[in-house]
């Protein structure tokens, strides 16, 4: 058991180290293509961390949505905008200061919290045992996460589905819904490189 815990601790430290390195690289890089790919790596590392926390459903979602679809959509966005980030007009000291103060405040806030994973934490003693004991009797399915998500908190999940729907409506209204909008045919926006390439043809 302890060997298992030590193994998980080593994996956690490795994942967090890579996570920090990826975050710094994302903040430093100006090439947005690399940033989009690194954001996918960041999501995949987060998914790994969720796996070590035994949160399989969350890890699955993070890997599929964060590392998969988001990266594809970001690359699609890059094709419409540009590949390089502009140089910031102001110095980075104030944002860095704000980040450090906010981070220090958050870490200070965790000092009052009960120890991570302790058996008598409120998260283990409040509603979790209730759901764990009620699900087999009332819902009759093994995956308690699904039971909470779709039945006990079904109204929340309906809200999430509506949020996804609303987000799509917003994006489609901005980009146009025809799906037939090739700029070569409609004379819309296009990056300079593409235009010169077409000019040669």
């Amino acid at each position, binding site marked *: 058991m302890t060997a298992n815990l030590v193994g998980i601790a080593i994996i956690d430290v490795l994942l967090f180290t890579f996570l920090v390195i990826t975050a710094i690289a994302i903040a430093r890089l100006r090439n947005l293509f690399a940033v989009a790919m690194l954001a996918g790596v960041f999501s995949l590392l987060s998914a790994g961390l969720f796996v070590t926390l035994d949160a399989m459903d969350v890890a699955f979602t993070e890997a599929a949505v964060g590392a998969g679809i988001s990266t594809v*959509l970001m690359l699609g966005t890059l094709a419409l905008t540009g590949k390089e980030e502009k140089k910031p007009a102001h110095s980075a000291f104030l944002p860095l200061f704000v980040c450090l103060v906010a981070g220090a405040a958050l870490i200070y806030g965790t000092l009052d919290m009960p120890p991570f994973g302790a058996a008598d934490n409120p998260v283990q003693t409040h509603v979790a045992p209730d759901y764990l004991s009620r699900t087999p009797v009332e819902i009759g399915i093994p995956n308690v996460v*699904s*039971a909470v998500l779709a039945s006990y908190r079904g109204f929340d999940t309906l809200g999430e589905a509506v949020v*996804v729907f609303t987000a799509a409506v917003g994006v489609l209204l901005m980009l146009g819904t025809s799906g*037939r909008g090739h700029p070569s045919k409609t004379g819309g926006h296009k990056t300079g490189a593409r235009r010169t390439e077409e000019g040669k043809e």
Partner: protein
Amino acid sequence: MQHHSILRVVSKLLIPPILVYALYVQFHGEYSPGGGFQAGVVFAVAFILFSLVYGVDELTRVVPPRLLHALTGIGVLIFAGTGIVTMLLGEAFLSYNALTENPVHAQEWGIVIVEFGVGVTVASVMLSLFIAFTSQNPPLDDKDW
């Protein structure tokens, strides 16, 4: 896209298992990790892979954007409609107990139905967004690869 035989063959081999896996994640979500959100994304990924290899025009021939836009709303309506049905059967909104005789079975049915609604919405939203982004660009010629 006439060359790149490897890409075309590999994607043809990959797309059916991805679709089956999405359905597994969707309808096995009561027993294993997964559910409508994850299944919808995986299902959309199969079509995105198809589009990456064969072009977005081929994709819109397979799934017209108008159909996708309708499905985004239909998924939400399946979810909310389940709640309306439970209300008509005399229970609270989204309280599935009234759906069948046995309340435990009714709960399972309710979860399967609303997760299906979530899956339909998520898959069609992801595909709609992908098509909206990519169809803004001219298709790549072979020499651009």
